[in-house]
């Protein structure tokens, strides 16, 4: 076996994914190294969320072909909770509300599940609260928010900030942020971007899914990929995002559709 493969944090090889017998992803190839930030852009319906969900282990997708390796391990063999415990974090495009379950209780359960997986004792309540306070600062989250039920009655911006807050709290190594920027005003956008930049380190990697370039003014990606009709049709550096901003997706669509 080629040991080089292990050096990628994430390696997606010719990944094909179906939903109810309809092929949504038609052969995705992507490598992400620790320390990198990748942006995945593309028109609505291209399969961006599908890719994110497949990485996180959402089960109504059928992986019909290809491989996903994460830190050398076959990701498809891990249950969604184990992927999370291995450091994969998905920032949801539409964070879910869980009435009656306080953020505090939810996050303590999450952290302690992860600690148990690593054979660590549950975090004492005092330390947990201290950790919460620290991480809340990163996203300038209102302390009142963590006493409420998970996402219940949160504004759009609060929900997204809450995702970044959780990303910071849960020892994330690979963050996949699905349109975390959409629907945010400039202030919230800046806070979200700060959070991501704060966590940027040589050990961590981030995949930012977005269809606007504006977030990329705040978080400078190392690579930009365009996903269209279930394939990555173009990759480049941050200048590709600028190009898309100026010219839209039409020129790419034309190129791809002409080849087809």
């Amino acid at each position, binding site marked *: 076996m080629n040991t080089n493969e292990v050096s990628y944090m994430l390696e997606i090889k010719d990944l094909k994914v179906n939903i109810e017998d309809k092929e949504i992803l038609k052969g995705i190839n992507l490598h992400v190294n620790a320390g990198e930030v990748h942006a995945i852009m593309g028109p609505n319906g291209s399969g961006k969320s599908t890719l994110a969900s497949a990485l*996180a*282990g*959402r*089960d*109504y997708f059928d992986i019909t072909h290809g491989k996903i390796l994460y830190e050398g391990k076959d990701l498809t063999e891990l*249950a*969604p*909770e184990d*992927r*999370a*415990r291995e450091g994969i*974090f*998905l920032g*949801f495009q539409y*964070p*879910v*509300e*869980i*009435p*009656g*379950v*306080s953020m505090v*209780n*939810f*996050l303590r*359960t*999450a*952290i302690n*599940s*992860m600690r148990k*997986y690593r054979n660590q004792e549950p975090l004492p309540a005092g330390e947990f609260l201290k950790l919460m306070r620290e991480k809340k600062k990163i996203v300038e989250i209102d302390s009142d928010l963590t006493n409420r*039920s*998970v996402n219940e009655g949160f504004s759009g911006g609060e929900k997204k900030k809450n995702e970044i807050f*959780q990303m910071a709290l*849960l020892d994330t190594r690979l963050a996949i942020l699905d349109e975390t920027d959409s629907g945010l005003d400039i202030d919230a956008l800046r806070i979200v971007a700060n959070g991501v930049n704060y966590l940027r380190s040589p050990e961590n990697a981030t995949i930012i899914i977005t269809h606007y370039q504006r977030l990329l003014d705040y978080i400078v990606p190392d690579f930009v990929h365009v996903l269209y009709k279930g394939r990555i049709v173009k990759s480049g550096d941050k200048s590709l995002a600028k190009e898309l901003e100026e010219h839209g997706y039409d020129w790419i669509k034309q190129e791809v559709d002409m080849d087809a």
Partner: protein
Amino acid sequence: MTDQEKILNEVTGSDYKFGFYTDIDTETIPKGLNEDVIRIISAKKEEPEWLTESRLKAFRHWQGLKMPEWAHLQISEIDYQDIIYYAAPIQEAKYQNMDEVDPELIDTFNRLGIPLEEQKQLAGVAVDAVIDSVSVKTTFQDTLADKGIIFCSFSEAVKNHPDLIKKFMGSVVPYTDNYFAALNSAVFSDGSFCYIPKGVRCPMELSTYFRINAANTGQFERTLIVVEDDAYVSYLEGCTAPQRDENQLHAAIVEIVAMENSEVKYSTVQNWYPGDKEGKGGIYNFVTKRGICKGDNSKISWTQVETGSAITWKYPSCILRGNNSVGEFYSVAVTNNYQQADTGTKMIHIGKNTRSTIISKGISAGKSQNSYRGLVKVLKGAENARNFSQCDSLLLGDKCGAHTFPYLEVDNKTAIVEHEATTSKIGEDQIFYCNQRGIDTENAISLIVNGYAKEVLNKLPMEFAVEAQKLLAITLEGSVG
């Protein structure tokens, strides 16, 4: 099978923890129900003549009744002649001393998490332990007696406090009330009696633990709680039964009398054997629970967590007769596999400025049926009566049913009655969100369900709230999506 179904099957697939049977010497009488059997029960309990007669009267009345069919329940026919109406662990008199108690019995209650040794118990909880037809041990009796509180088995109360029993028994639930009340009044075996004198706040939780052990027996206990002026008590009832293929009958009566400015908090964690995954066996639980707020400014609060029984038929109710009296009903009813529950409450507003609150949380999984049935009745004289009802149903999966039957009868124009109802499903999205934060599906369900039921669980005494939370999780283990 979709993934949702897979998760559902997993979570609903767990086993009943209290299904063991204890091999203790048990004295039983032959199966069957007739006047002789009733006389035998009464004789075994050395009851006074008036009580024997009262039983016989109830029995004759019952013979003329038909089993009620209005509930949303499918009940296979019950052969009342095929049931044993009296079973008791063999023992002379009641144990005064722990050394006298059959070690098997102590062990049984230990396994149920109810140690009978006072020093091992939760501080501040006195227990009356009832196995099959008799009470085997009541703890902390002396401590309570110092305050003038009577807490003992029903049989003891008949012997030692006949005047109180004569005065209050049947005063809230008369034997003519309904089919199962009549049956219970004829054959009731044991139960608890609790009397809090004027001005006394009971310093500890009182609790009765009911255990069916013997096969083919029915359990018919009665509980009577009388709380005098300015007195307070918090009472808890728990129950379990061994796992068996046959259905077993449980038909109980609970009566509460609350005098002026008094308050009674009655909490139940009902965990009778629910039957197996195919719906075989389980307890038929037909219970009449009712309290009367007799005095002004009195309050009765029912909190129930219903997770067990194959069939539950139960409507803890409040008669709000005193002016400014308050009735509350907080309920979580969980059904899984083939369980059926038809439960709710009746709030009868008679006095002025009476208030009632109903919070019902139904959770159905598997192929179970879960119904809320509630009556809010405001009589003519009940000026300014208020009621708020909220009935929520949570569905886990799509093979179960949730139903709401709210009845309203308002005869006073000043009354304000509000009713809210919601039905929701545990979403696969919610579970996946938890999974993505490292929480496995079982814990996710437990988290979501406990969050949903929080308003009610918060009403339980602390020690029991934790137990109840675990119980919800266990009941639904193996079930969601």
